[in-house]
C-alpha cells in the first residue's frame, strides 16, 4: 500500500506578499512556483554563471543577506525579492595597451582608494571570497594576489551593490586577472608550438580524412580511440 507523502509547505514573502511554496525548493524555484518567470536574473541554474545574485532576509533576523538564488534553499518566513542586474561602473581599456605596473588597477578604478576595510563586500560574497582583501591587494599594486583571491568570482555583483564606498569589486578583480593572465603568467610554449604546427598544415591531411568519413565510421573511431589513463 502506498500512502500519499504530503509535501510540507512553507510561507515566503515575495516582494512583501505571502505565498505558500513546497519546502526544499531553492529561492529561484520557490519564486517560479509562486508564478514568477525569470527573463533576467537567471542563467545556468547551477551556481556557475552568477546571474542570479539575490537579497533576502530570514525570519526574525536582523541580517540583510545575499546569495545566489539558484543555490540557496528557501526557508519558512523568508522575505524574498528579485535582483535582475547590478548597475556598475566599468572602466574602458585596451588590454593590449596596459602594463602590469603596480598602479595599473588604481589608475582605472581610482575609487578603490575609498575602501575603509569595512568588509561588507566579503560578507556579501556568495562564493565566500576574501573580497576586501583583493581590493586591498589591488590598491597596493599586488596584482598576483588580487588575481588569485578573486579567481572564483562569478561576477554576480552583490559586493558592488553592498559597498558603502561605491567600489565595483568584481570588475576590479576581473581586470586584475586579465592583467595577470596577459602580463604576469609565463606564455605557454607548447601552445605556440602547436599553433605553428597547425599553421604549417601538419594536421590538414588527417582533417580531410575525418571530414570525408560517414557518421557510423566516426562513431566507431571515437569509441575505439586510445584513452590516456
Amino acid at each position, binding site marked *: 500500500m502506498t500512502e500519499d507523502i504530503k509535501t510540507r509547505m512553507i510561507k515566503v514573502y515575495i516582494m512583501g506578499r505571502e505565498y505558500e511554496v513546497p519546502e526544499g525548493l531553492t529561492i529561484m524555484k520557490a519564486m517560479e512556483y509562486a508564478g514568477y518567470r525569470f527573463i533576467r536574473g537567471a542563467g545556468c541554474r547551477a551556481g556557475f554563471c552568477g546571474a542570479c545574485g539575490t537579497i533576502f532576509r530570514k525570519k526574525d533576523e536582523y541580517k540583510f543577506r545575499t546569495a545566489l538564488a539558484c543555490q540557496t534553499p528557501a526557508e519558512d518566513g523568508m522575505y524574498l525579492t528579485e535582483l535582475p542586474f547590478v548597475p556598475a561602473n566599468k572602466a574602458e581599456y585596451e588590454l593590449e595597451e596596459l602594463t602590469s605596473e603596480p598602479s595599473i588597477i588604481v589608475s582605472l578604478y581610482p575609487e578603490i582608494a575609498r575602501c*575603509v*576595510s*569595512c*568588509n561588507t563586500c566579503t560578507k556579501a560574497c556568495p562564493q565566500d571570497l576574501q573580497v576586501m582583501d583583493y581590493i*586591498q591587494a589591488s590598491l597596493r*599594486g599586488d596584482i598576483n594576489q588580487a588575481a588569485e583571491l578573486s579567481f572564483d568570482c562569478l561576477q554576480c555583483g552583490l559586493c558592488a551593490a553592498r559597498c558603502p564606498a561605491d567600489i565595483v569589486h568584481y570588475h576590479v578583480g576581473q581586470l586584475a586577472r586579465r592583467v595577470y593572465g596577459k602580463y604576469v603568467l609565463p606564455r605557454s610554449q607548447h601552445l605556440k608550438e602547436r599553433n605553428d604546427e597547425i599553421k604549417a598544415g601538419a594536421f590538414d591531411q588527417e582533417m580531410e580524412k575525418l571530414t570525408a568519413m560517414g557518421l557510423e565510421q566516426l562513431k566507431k573511431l571515437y569509441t575505439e580511440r586510445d584513452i590516456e589513463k
Partner: protein
Amino acid sequence: MKIPYYPGCTLKTTAKPFEDTTKAVSEVLGIELLEMPRWNCCGTVYSLASDDLMHQLAPIRNLIRVQDMGYDRVTTLCSMCYNTLEQANQLVKGDPEKLEKMNSFMDQEKDYTGGVTVVHYLTLLKEMGFDSLPVKNPLKGLTVVPYYGCLLLRPEEISIDNPERPTIMAELLAALGATVVDHPYKLECCGSYHTVDYKEVVCEKTYHILSSARKRGAEAVVLSCPLCEFNLDFRQKDLEQELAPMPILYFSQLLAVSLGLFDALGFDQHYVDPEPLLKEKGLLR
C-alpha cells in the same frame, strides 16, 4: 626575536628599498619579521572625527590580524602606518564603548581585546641596544641629519621618543659611525599630501628643510617615512631656488651599508642618487 611585521602599501611599491634593506638587516640582527599573511591599508591618515568609527575599522582590523597570529606586538616601518595604527589602538583602548561598537560591526572577526602594541622598528632597534649593532663598515666621514617629521612623534601619546627633542635616530646614526648634526627643522612637516594638489607648498618646505640642513654641513638627510622621502627627494626636481642635490635616505639603508649589506639598497628608486656620495666616502663596495 620573532615579531609580526605590518608592511603597509608603499613599502611594497615606491618604498621598496626601505623594506628590502630592513629585511636584510633584520636577518643579520636575528629579528625574525613575520610578515602578516593578511593585512589591509592602515587607513593612511588617522581620522580625527570622534564619531566616525568607519575610518577606524581599517587600523583595528589589522590589529585583530596580529591578535589572530597569537602575538601582542607588531612592528612597522612607515611613520604614517605607525601613527595611524597606534592612534586608533589608543582610541579603542581608552574607549571601551567605541571598541564594543566596532567589534559588533566586525562580526565575522574575533573581538579585538586591545592587547596589541604597535612598535616602530626604530624602537625595536633601541630595545636591542644601538651599541650592540654589529657594525662592520662604520659610516666614517659621513655627515648626516636625522629628519623625524610629524608622524613618529605626534601626538605625544604615541611618540616613539621625546616629541620636542627626539634623539633616537641621532643615537642610531652615531652608533653606525656617522657624524650627526642637529637641525632646527628636524620636526618640521614636509607638507605631506599637499604634494598632490599644492606642489608649491611642499617645494617651499623642502627647500627650507634641505637648505638649512645643508648650511649645517649635512651631506644627506635620514628619515623613516615614505611620504617625507618622496617630498624631500622627488620635489627637489621642482624647486625654483638653487639647491645642490641632497640625498635622502631611509635609516635602514644606512644601517644596511654599515652592516656591509650592499645587495638590496635600491638607490635607483631615488631621485637624488645617494651612491656617488657614499662612494666618495668609501662606504660602498
